[in-house]
């Protein structure tokens, strides 16, 4: 099966001459969350704007479900329907002071009949848990609530690919857990391909199924999160680090000479430590 979205040798240079994307090739599969890791300025945001047709690459192509995207008006409209972006700052995305009307915007732009728009708005509000905020003005919402409303405004277009730029930045710990639960529900329930940019490394083993490391506009490494964590040097060169748990297991292995295997989540580390303890007993 074709990946939901794929880029081949994508290049993008800003007007001032900085190469933001340098032959980027990556893909995101349906029903999987793909993490795009990279420090500030690695090219994550530029990549996302290229994937959704807001920016046009100088060379290379974007493929949706195996078919190259046309850059004419119809092709772009199609691309924007199928690929939705949730921006980092919800205040950049919510343009209406009325939550319901803001969420309806994307669906109205698709030219759907009113009843269908209303059905989708209700479904998106239900899914993101903002239904009770419909009577509030946007400026009365908390940051986390604005974030959810912004996600609802993208879900209403029923995209196949959902892109989130630093989705957990600025959220409190419970807000982060809620968001992860929502993403998992979208991945498993709607079989969406989800791409998320982050430099919150502790988040990566929790939610990402695949990961790419981006640096200086190039793909430096690709694989499962566990595969990326085996290259701590490369992560550090790119201003990233191992997740705390993975780092701990690393130290136990290298410095303390324990026979601990790699583990990046609390669950995996617990299993590993229990295994070691049981071996000790025997």
């Amino acid at each position: 099966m074709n990946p939901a979205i794929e880029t081949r040798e994508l290049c993008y240079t800003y007007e001032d001459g900085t190469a933001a994307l340098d032959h980027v090739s990556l893909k995101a599969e349906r029903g999987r969350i793909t993490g795009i890791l990279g420090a500030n300025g690695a090219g994550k945001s530029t990549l996302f704007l290229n994937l959704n047709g807001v920016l046009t690459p100088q060379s290379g192509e974007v493929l949706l479900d195996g078919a190259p995207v046309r850059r004419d008006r119809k092709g772009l409209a199609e691309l924007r329907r199928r690929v939705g972006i949730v921006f980092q700052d919800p205040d950049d995305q919510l343009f209406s002071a009325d939550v319901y009307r803001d969420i309806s915007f994307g669906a109205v732009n698709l030219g759907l009949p009113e009843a269908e728009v209303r059905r989708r708005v209700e479904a998106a509000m239900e899914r993101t848990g903002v239904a009770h905020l419909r009577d509030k003005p946007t400026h009365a919402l908390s940051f986390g609530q604005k974030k959810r409303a912004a996600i609802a405004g993208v879900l209403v277009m029923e995209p196949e690919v959902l892109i989130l730029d630093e989705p957990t930045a600025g959220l409190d710990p419970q807000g982060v857990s809620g968001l992860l639960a929502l993403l998992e529900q979208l991945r498993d329930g709607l079989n969406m391909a989800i791409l998320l940019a982050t430099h919150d490394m502790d988040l990566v083993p929790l939610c990402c199924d695949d990961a790419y490391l981006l640096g200086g506009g190039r793909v430096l490494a690709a694989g499962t999160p566990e595969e990326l964590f085996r290259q701590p040097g490369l992560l550090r060169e790119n201003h990233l680090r191992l997740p705390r748990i993975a780092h701990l297991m690393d130290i136990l292995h290298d410095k303390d000479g324990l026979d601990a295997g790699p583990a990046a989540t609390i669950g995996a580390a617990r299993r590993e430590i229990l295994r070691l303890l049981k071996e000790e007993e025997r």
Partner: protein
Amino acid sequence: MGTDRWAYQSRLRRVDPLPKLILSLTALVVCLCCGSGAVGLATAAAMGVLITALGGLPPRVYLHFLKIPMAFLAVGCATMLVHSYPAGTPVLAALPVGGRLWGFDGAALAAAAALFFRALGAVGAMYFLALNTPVTDLTMCLGRLHVPRLLVELMELIYRFIFVLSETAGSIRTAQASRLGYQGLRRSLSSLGTMASLVFLRAWRRADRIYAALESRGYAGSLTTLPGDYAPGRGLYPLALAVAAGQLAVLFAERGVLG
């Protein structure tokens, strides 16, 4: 945005804005055209009853909002009230200044009072709209009345981003104040200038990001959205007629009493 906060809590919040607009405008026009203080007072009272009974606003709050334009009205009416009269004219109260009397007589007092209450009535009529209709509903309604789309969209965007900008300005101000940026007039002025230019720059950059976000959601030149479901509110049309009839009845009663 004091009125807007109450508008979101109003029981008429979910009622179609058009009948609300029509009720407000009818009451306003009739009140202004009658040119009578009694009608003005009756209008302000009637609007108070409607806002509290239908919208669920506490009467105390309505009275508070009526007090806000009081100062403007008082100043405006004072200039209507005071005239200069030749010495010896019968007046109610006056001061002799340089051979003439400066003060007011019965007719001037009546005219000033009529103006004051007329304006109060007009304010009351507008409050019915403002205290029951959020701004976004009002602009939506203007769009339906074929006000140019560009104007309506600008109003909506400005209204939304007033809050974002004022938040930005507020946080810059706090950051400056926490480093003693507002001690003394000179420093205050310089800090204020820096803040203004920073807010402008940030707004400029934000505009780019907003445009990208709109485009990514399929923006094609118009900010068309679908409002939440409105209750039709057709009951407000006969109510508007009843209010107008009441206003006219007060006018005729006043004319009858005065002969």
